[in-house]
């Protein structure tokens, strides 16, 4: 198994590696190195295999060769019949969903998981016992058969219930997964047709326009200004141009291939489908991601641990008493029946169902707070999270470029970057601003999509790239209707931005009817713009650009750049009217207009600003002992700037580089221990051994990983897990899915996330907001605490149910409580109260304590078991025995007469058994009394379970600090307990099969003093825990 795992894994890595080369270009070698580093045991042959699969040479072929290869025609497309044939051969063009466990297997798993095995054993023992009885005595009573059947029924019911819960939560997710079917425009039979993208086959000629998803892997045949967003594939958000030229040997880097599921941002492209469905690049990654195994969730481990404890106790007590019973000369058959009783008494039948309900209640609560939980157990995992590896873009930031700073008049102004931009406070009176704003408005090709009049400006959809969109929205907010301004300043000619020019230029008529001059506006990379300028505008007046002004420009540029912001320079020139009359015809090819000696107006910097709720959330995480690590593909400077602004790197901590810079010494001389924060780039990471990575993860509190590739994200997650941390990973791209799967809890983004990411994740953030994770953590921690309480509550009565059997065997009393009655407690009266504990509020600020250590802080620890079993459980047993003895005594059997009465008592042939008063009892009269005893014992446990429920509300605080009535559900639980008890005793008291009888009202109160004693004892326990933290008492009594 291990072998196989690592194979899949290595294939996966080399797979993504290839993809990453697309954006990393020349750094091919560095990623090789990384791969060698991270996977020493990697399998060369597998890598080659995958390489072979990617031996795509379609990008090298000419159009005619392609036509030949795929038997198609670029003009007329495939014929419908041929397409149908290919569809039949290759299957639909969609990703095979990850392999699901068959429903029946899931169902059977529920049937045999947990305690079910024990109950099955019990049931079979019952039947075997009956079989033996029957073989010797044909008239053997059917009681054992009934009991066995009841046990099986219990197993099946709880199994069905758990299965139903599971299915329900899966359904939420699958409904969420359902998307509107994608359409594709395809040429077939020389006609353009719109067909569902699923029906595409290789050789189809498709047309994709800006805003559409690429429906399959396609080879570009022709394109007009097409740019695609490969971020879901590579994590890089920079749009990439696409054209029909073959530019690179590597299919993943060449410009003439577009990949399935990426988005065409602008322009149009016509291409031939070369791969569909699972054979696409995305298909490869998706199928490989499913190869990364799921770790067991912490709560699953805890529950398993708990089941082991309880089952261990049950089996060992059972066997111990089996031996005792046999050596006490009981018949083996009777001893087997005792064994069953002990098992039934020990197993909290209802508990696993309760846990499921509790988790799904919390899941519902979290869904309301925008955390959609796919996997119920993930609810708690989030609570035990100790490291969050967070993406930057979209999660911590708003995922849109926003104008953050402006520089004009030798001054830096701060723009409002909050989500609604409403509060722009910088000085807008300067006439330099008037000029600058004009350039911003005019030198911009972005436009709002029509039909959004009522949408707030910041939410309007825009056609154009990220920075132009930012500028458009910025100017729209400040100046009003930008379209109107552009209309007044008619555009005469423009040169769009391109990477060789690094500027964008346009020439406009002015809106002043008396001014016949043309206005040339230009924006671009600041240094390029500065080169083209000879003057600079300060306070509305042009000044010559001398060395000192150039220096102030550079200082400002460096400062803004140092903030990790993208800086743009703006300049303009009014073309003299005599040289450029109104009729002048501008020609962009010959550039018959000046592009130098312009007037520099200002700088403007943009950033993807952090979400306003994030800094607060990060602080909360920090106080909750959770390390937040930023892992991003972005530049270190930008990453660090965002990390600082959201508090991932706190204001007063420095990196090694910062210290070196401050002290003006080389980086090597800085004491590593002085630095609290670290910014590690992918370049550095690839040279590190896993020990070095461990060291970084262990030594630095504040870490930012920048320029990382997706598989490095996986390495970081593994590094964190080596520290015994429970790691949460956020991600949205396809490339994140292995890391999401690898993480203890993968969190996908609901809005920005790709389907592959959502599939791999355990949880989906519907609002893509980091702050939602924090609420999730809070809920997760609360549920862990509350589950502890629930389990403590449930375990307690096990002793009260078990003792009767032990006493029955040893002292020979008439059986105090029947197996069926026990089931009525476990699955009847105790269910609602134990669920009610899930609604308990936190005792103290749970976000101020460290996350639990997943190996040390167990759900069920020794203290919990000991305190529940040996303290409260024992007190309960005594209380219940008191009720039992009272009932028997008042009917004539005083306690001492009961001892060793068992054999005669249960003998059907003794119909004149004498009691303390000399009265004689028939078998049936005794049996009826025995049932009354069951009912009494039942009521005794029930009454004390009410006290138990109340004391379990808190583990440390006094009940009075917590508030007795704050959790109303508890009272519903208590009421349900009493009502069910009343119904069983008085409603069903006449149904003999259930062995309940109508109990006199006063017996309900016999155990009340014991219940009060339990409460008092527990208050004393909590008092000492609060008074002497860390003491012997605290260590032994706090669970």
């Amino acid at each position, binding site marked *: 198994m*291990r072998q196989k*795992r690592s194979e899949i894994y290595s294939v996966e890595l080399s797979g993504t590696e290839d993809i990453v080369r697309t954006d990393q270009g020349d750094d091919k070698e560095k990623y090789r190195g990384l791969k060698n580093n991270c996977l020493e045991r990697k399998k060369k042959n597998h890598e080659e295999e995958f390489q072979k699969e990617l031996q795509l040479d379609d990008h090298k072929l000419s159009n005619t060769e392609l036509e030949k290869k795929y038997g198609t025609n670029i003009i007329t497309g495939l014929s419908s019949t041929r397409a149908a044939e290919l569809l039949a051969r290759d299957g639909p063009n969609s990703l095979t969903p990850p392999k699901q466990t068959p429903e029946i297997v899931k169902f059977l798993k529920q049937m045999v998981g947990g305690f079910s095995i024990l109950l099955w054993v019990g049931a079979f023992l019952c039947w075997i016992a009956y079989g033996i009885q029957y073989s010797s*005595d*044909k*008239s053997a009573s059917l009681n054992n058969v009934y009991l066995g059947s009841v046990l099986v029924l219990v197993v099946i019911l709880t199994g069905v219930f758990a299965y139903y819960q599971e299915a329900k939560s899966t359904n939420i997710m699958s409904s969420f997964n359902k998307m509107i079917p994608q359409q594709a425009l395809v040429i077939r039979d020389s006609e353009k047709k719109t067909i569902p993208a699923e029906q595409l086959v290789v050789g189809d000629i498709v047309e994709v326009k800006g805003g559409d998803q690429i429906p399959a892997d396609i080879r570009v045949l022709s394109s007009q200004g097409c740019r695609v967003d490969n971020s879901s594939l590579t994590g890089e958000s920079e749009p990439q141009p696409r054209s029909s030229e073959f530019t690179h040997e590597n299919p993943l880097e060449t410009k003439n291939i577009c990949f399935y599921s990426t988005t065409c941002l602008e322009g149009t492209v016509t291409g031939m489908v070369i791969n569909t469905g699972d054979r696409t690049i995305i298909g490869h990654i998706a199928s490989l991601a499913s190869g990364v195994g799921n*770790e067991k969730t912490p709560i699953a481990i805890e529950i398993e641990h708990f089941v082991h404890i309880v089952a261990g106790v049950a089996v060992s007590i059972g066997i111990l008493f089996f031996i005792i019973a046999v050596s006490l000369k009981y018949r083996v058959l009777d001893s087997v029946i005792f064994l069953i009783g002990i098992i039934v008494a020990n197993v909290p039948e209802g508990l696993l169902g309760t846990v499921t309900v509790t988790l799904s209640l919390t899941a519902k609560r979290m869904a309301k707070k925008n955390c959609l939980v796919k996997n119920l157990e993930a609810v708690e995992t989030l609570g035990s999270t100790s490291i969050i590896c967070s993406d930057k873009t979209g999660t911590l930031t708003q995922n849109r470029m926003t104008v953050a700073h402006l520089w004009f008049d030798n001054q830096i102004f701060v723009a409002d970057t909050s989500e609604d931009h409403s509060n722009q406070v910088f000085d807008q009176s300067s006439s330099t601003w008037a000029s600058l704003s004009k350039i911003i408005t005019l030198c911009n090709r972005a436009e709002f999509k029509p039909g959004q009049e009522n949408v707030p400006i910041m939410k309007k959809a825009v056609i154009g790239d990220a920075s132009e969109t930012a500028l458009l929205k910025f100017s729209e907010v400040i100046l009003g209707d930008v379209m109107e301004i552009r209309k007044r300043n008619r555009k005469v000619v423009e040169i769009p931005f391109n990477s060789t020019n690094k500027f964008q230029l346009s020439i406009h008529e002015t809106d002043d009817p008396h001014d016949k001059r043309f206005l040339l506006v230009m924006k671009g990379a600041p240094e390029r713009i500065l080169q083209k300028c000879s003057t600079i505008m300060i306070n509305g007046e042009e000044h010559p650009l001398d060395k000192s002004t150039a220096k102030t420009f550079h200082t400002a540029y460096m400062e803004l750049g140092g903030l990790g912001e993208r800086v743009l320079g703006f300049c303009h020139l009014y073309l003299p009217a005599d040289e450029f009359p109104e009729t002048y015809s501008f020609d962009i090819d010959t550039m018959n207009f000046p592009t130098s000696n312009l007037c520099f107006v200002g700088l403007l910097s943009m950033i993807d600003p952090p979400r306003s709720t994030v800094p607060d959330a990060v602080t909360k995480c920090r106080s909750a002992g959770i390390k937040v690590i930023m892992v991003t593909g972005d530049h270190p400077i930008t990453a660090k700037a965002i990390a600082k602004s959201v508090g991932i790197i706190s204001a007063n901590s420095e990196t090694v580089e910062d210290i070196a810079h401050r002290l003006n010494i080389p980086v090597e001389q800085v004491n590593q221990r002085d630095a609290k924060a670290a910014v590690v780039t992918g370049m550095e990471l690839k040279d590190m051994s896993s020990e070095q990575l461990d060291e970084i993860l262990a030594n630095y509190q504040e870490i930012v990983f920048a320029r990382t590739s997706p598989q490095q994200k996986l390495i970081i997650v*593994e590094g964190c*897990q*080596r520290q015994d941390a429970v790691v949460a990973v956020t991600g949205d791209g396809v490339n994140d899915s292995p890391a999401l799967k*690898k993480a203890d809890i993968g969190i996908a983004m609901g809005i920005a996330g790709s389907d592959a990411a959502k599939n791999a994740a355990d949880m989906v953030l519907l609002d893509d907001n980091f702050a939602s994770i924090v609420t999730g953590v809070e809920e997760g921690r609360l549920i862990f605490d509350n589950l502890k309480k629930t389990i403590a509550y449930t375990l307690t009565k096990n002793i009260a149910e078990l003792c009767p059997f032990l006493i029955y065997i040893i002292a020979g009393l008439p059986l105090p409580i029947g197996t069926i009655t026990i089931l009525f407690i476990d699955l009847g009266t105790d269910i609602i109260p134990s669920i009610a504990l899930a609604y308990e509020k936190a005792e103290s600020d749970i976000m101020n304590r460290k996350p639990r250590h997943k190996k040390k802080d167990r759900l069920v620890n020794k203290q919990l078991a000991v305190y529940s079993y*040996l*303290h409260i459980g*024992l*007190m309960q047993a*005594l209380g219940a*025995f*008191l009720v039992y*003895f*009272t009932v028997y*005594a*008042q*009917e*004539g059997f*005083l*306690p001492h007469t009961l001892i060793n009465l068992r054999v005669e008592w249960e003998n*059907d*042939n003794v*119909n*004149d058994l*004498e*009691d*303390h*008063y*000399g*009265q*004689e*009892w*028939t*078998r*049936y*009269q005794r049996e*009826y*009394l025995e049932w*009354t005893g069951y009912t009494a014992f039942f009521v005794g446990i029930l009454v004390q379970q009410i006290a138990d429920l109340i004391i379990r509300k808190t583990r440390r605080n006094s009940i009075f600090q917590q508030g007795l009535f704050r959790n109303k559900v508890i009272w519903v639980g208590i009421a349900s307990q009493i009502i069910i008890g009343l119904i069983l005793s008085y409603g069903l008291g006449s149904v*003999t099969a259930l062995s309940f009888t109508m109990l*006199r009202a006063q017996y309900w109160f016999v155990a009340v*003093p014991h219940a009060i*004693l339990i409460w008092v004892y527990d208050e004393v326990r909590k008092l000492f825990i609060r008074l002497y933290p860390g003491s*012997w008492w605290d260590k*032994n009594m706090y669970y």
Partner: protein
Amino acid sequence: MAALQEKKTCSQRMEEFQRYCWNPDTGQMLGRTLSRWVWISLYYVAFYVVMTGLFALCLYVLMQTVDPYTPDYQDQLRSPGVTLRPDVYGEKGLEIVYNVSDNRTWADLTHTLHTFYSPAAQEDSINCTSDQYFFQERFLAPNHTKFSCKFTADMLQNCSGLVDPDFGFEEGKPCFIIKMNRIVKFLPSNGSAPRVDCAFLDQPHELGQPLQVVYYPPNGTFSLHYFPYYGKKAQPHYSNPLVAAKLLNVPRNTQVAIVCKVMAEHVTFDNPHDPYEGKVEFKLKIVK
């Protein structure tokens, strides 16, 4: 990944367990040092002593509240059970099978009856003749008790074993003893003595005639002066009244079901759950 999934080997587990049992570095046994063990044990001893004490106190209080002479509740003993001697049980209830000619098959039965009769000392009991209830409000008998009426074997005459030590088993006309269970302060009827009535459960078709029974004491009555019963403490020498039924015409070689009911106003025999309430059924087969 590797670190998390590593399975411990068996020897590692054993080593860990050994270390748990005795850790030489910290001097811990089973996770606690010796002094810690003493402390925790002392706590538990104290805790359990207190708990046991409290429980004992509760039981003591319970015993104090319980009436020594009469049980607090008798709702489950509304009607007395009836039992039969000799009592040999088969798969379903009483089943008596014996061979007239083989005395080994009924020796046990007669032995049961003999031992059943060997009465406790009845010196302190008085002879009663009245056929009224023998109510006693006060404790007039010696040692602060109440008087009990004497019931001796000879009152059963032919079925007493004194006249016929074989209780009629040899001649195929066996005696059966019917006993009514004691219930404190129970009054079976409103003045007439309760009477035993035995009959075939299902009238055997081939015989066509009812069961002929001779009852001892005559009429098969329990004399009223044995009632009410005041409990073991008040009447330590109480002896149960009995009725013997000598069955005269039991067919040979067939199993017959016979029911003996106690006829009295306050004795019911129609409880579907309790086959021994107010009546006793038994199967009898006399082989010849």
